[in-house]
């Protein structure tokens, strides 16, 4: 009891770790003081900071400003929320949002689960086999999506594509995969699902290596089988990695573009239109930069909301 009391009394709560409140002017002074003291470090950071400001921060802020304007070559006009109203009234935007959401809802869980399963199957293998599979599954990640899309376009070809050839073996009629509204989006989803999620596999493998073997040994002694260990040890302990991968692939899925422009152009009849492709068309085909900026801001907010929800859900019991 005595020991516990001592332990409790010496435990430091998070609240105690907070820095004492200081007036803002004093904090500012400290920042300047800190910068002055370590100016050489900041000088090294400067080039990257300048590039970041020029090519990331400034365009982001400018896009936000632009979203409240009607862009015209000879001077933009401030139009308040009109662009945002147009975005939400636009049927094309709603179709693109629906398509993108469906694409994300199917491909993200599939990619995460498949990466986890593949990594779990590779992990127990010997070093040489593990390296081989690691490289094999990572290969598509370093291959240009343009090339992958071209190959898949060929595989979906109606006359001499691989898929219709296989269907032919079973006496099934050829399908116009990319030419029918009912199949085009699913064809793209299948493609995305079948491209191995290399980053996920590599990250899961790295994280699995960090799980202590003693946990598995203890579970074995308690009589747990391989599947139980996978469900009750591996998956829970990989949660931070899963969180990161879910966020990463959700953002990537919401920004799907290359496959669309290379394989369907958003057609037929908008069946494969996605948000980023729509933004590209609005900006660089119609040159309505204000509207495109508003669409981008809305996409940013959608991704932000999804990310926060996912973050909170997956981080809940950490």
């Amino acid at each position, binding site marked *: 009891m005595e020991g516990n009391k001592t332990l409790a009394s010496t435990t430091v709560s998070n609240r105690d770790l907070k820095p004492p409140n200081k007036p803002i002017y004093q904090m500012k002074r400290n920042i300047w003081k800190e910068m002055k003291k370590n*100016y*050489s470090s900041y*000088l090294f950071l400067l080039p990257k900071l300048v590039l970041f400001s020029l090519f990331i921060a400034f365009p982001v802020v400018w896009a936000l400003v632009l979203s409240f304007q009607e*862009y*015209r*070559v*000879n001077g933009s006009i401030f139009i308040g929320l009109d662009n945002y109203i147009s975005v939400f009234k636009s*049927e094309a935007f709603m179709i693109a949002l629906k398509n993108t959401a469906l694409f994300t809802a199917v491909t993200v869980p599939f990619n995460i689960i498949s990466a986890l399963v593949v990594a779990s199957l590779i992990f127990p293998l010997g070093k040489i086999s593990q390296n081989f599979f690691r490289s094999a599954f990572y290969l598509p990640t370093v291959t240009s999506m343009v090339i992958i899309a071209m190959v898949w376009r060929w595989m979906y*070809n*109606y*006359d001499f594509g691989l898929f219709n050839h296989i269907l032919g073996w079973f006496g099934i009629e*050829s399908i*116009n995969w*990319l*030419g*029918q*509204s*009912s199949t085009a989006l699913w064809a793209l989803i299948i493609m995305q699902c079948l491209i191995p999620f290399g980053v996920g596999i590599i990250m899961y493998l790295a994280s699995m290596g960090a799980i202590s073997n003693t946990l598995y040994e203890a579970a074995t002694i308690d009589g747990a089988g391989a599947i139980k260990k996978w469900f009750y040890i591996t998956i829970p302990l990989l949660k931070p990695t899963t969180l990161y991968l879910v966020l990463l692939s959700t953002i990537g899925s919401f920004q799907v573009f290359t496959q669309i422009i290379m394989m*369907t*152009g958003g*057609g*037929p*009849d*908008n069946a494969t239109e996605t948000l980023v492709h729509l933004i590209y*068309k609005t900006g*660089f*085909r*119609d*040159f309505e*930069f204000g509207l495109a900026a508003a669409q981008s801001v809305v996409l940013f907010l959608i991704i932000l909301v999804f990310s926060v929800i996912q973050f909170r859900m997956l981080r809940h019991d950490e």
Partner: protein
Amino acid sequence: MKWVKRSFLSILSVVLLAGLLVACTDDEGSSDDDGNWTGTITIWDGPRWPDEDDNKYHWLEAKAAEYEEENEGIEIEIVQVPWAEMGDKLGVSIAGQSWPDIAPVDISGSAVSIDHIEQGVIESVDDLFTDEELDDFYENSLEAYTFNDQLYGIPNSITVHSMLLNLDLFEEQGVEPPADGKWTWDEFLNTAQELTFDRDGDGETDVYGFSTYILEGYYEAWPFFYKDGGQPLSDDLSEFTFNSPEAVKAIQDLADLKHEHDAAPETLGGNDVGGTFQAWANEEQRTVAMQPWATWAIQSAQSEYPTNFMVAEYPIGERSEHVTIGGVGGWIMFSQDSDGKREAVGDFMKYLSTTEEQYTMATEYGIFPARKSSADMDPYAENEQMARAQEMTSDVVMLPRHPEWKKIDEIIQGKLQTVFNGEKTAQEAMDEAQELVNDLLE
């Protein structure tokens, strides 16, 4: 350590200052005592025909050198831009207000549009020509560059779409091609059916009579939709008219080549441009006997994919006269700040657009001249197929010049795709298109 900091800051300052100076430098030039403008004219152009060193910009380089020699103090800067990137780069340059002085532009379907004329991005070139000089241009080519009775570009070439017929397949099936390349819809339909056949007797069709594709910005199939008198928008551009009975019938007729008559492959109305052409032109395929194409395909079938073919007109329907869709290429001048430079730029554009230059372009580059005098020089005297296509330039109708045309086109082509893939009838699809297009026309 101090000197490192000082040196770093000095170099940074110099670089920033230099950047600022470069950014602020204008190339508006200046005028000498006689009032002659001197300075640099920037012109963008795409690759044209090669010389012995495979330089595809030699024609413009030679013209620029000649012009510089004749006009002391004027320098021509040529910026080489691949044709595939021309639209995007022009669009971005306009958005960034860093446009060239001159660029080759098909105003009916490119990054530069009527909207840009309204915004003052493009200069009028109305005062470059006398009425007599303008009479030398084909009327439809001038119309393409005319807005509010002002000319906004010098037409350089006319492109047409025509039907290309693989004569080997006609011969194989013992089918007679249309006399003079003229035919009615019924004759065309019969021919397409006769040219659809199973070569090896395995029960599957090996060759189809006809095919084409439907894609935003491409109009190979569209002259068929005009055959009974239909057109996408009313003459005053206030109404969508592709759901009129005559347009709907024409659209359904073409789609039914696949759906009803089995004279076209499943890919009819798809979006694969390259695949469609290969099916007609590639010796290893040749699975389609007739396809409509723009002029470039004629040259391709004469050189890259040698094919025994003839050029025919689109079939005639209720309209009773041949109509094809075309485009007009030409030089446009972007907004200028100084009158002196505007005059010099206009003069150089004119220099590139003479009868002789358009004739050279026709013989060497394979375009149809926009000047009657160049066409009269008979550039295709020894090229039967090109000569036949050139005859069609007078049948060319231009696409509606609505500022929202790209969006309208996207809607129409999207709905057309659903007709050709069998998801909707022409009437249903065009009625849906009407609702969406009318919003843009309001």
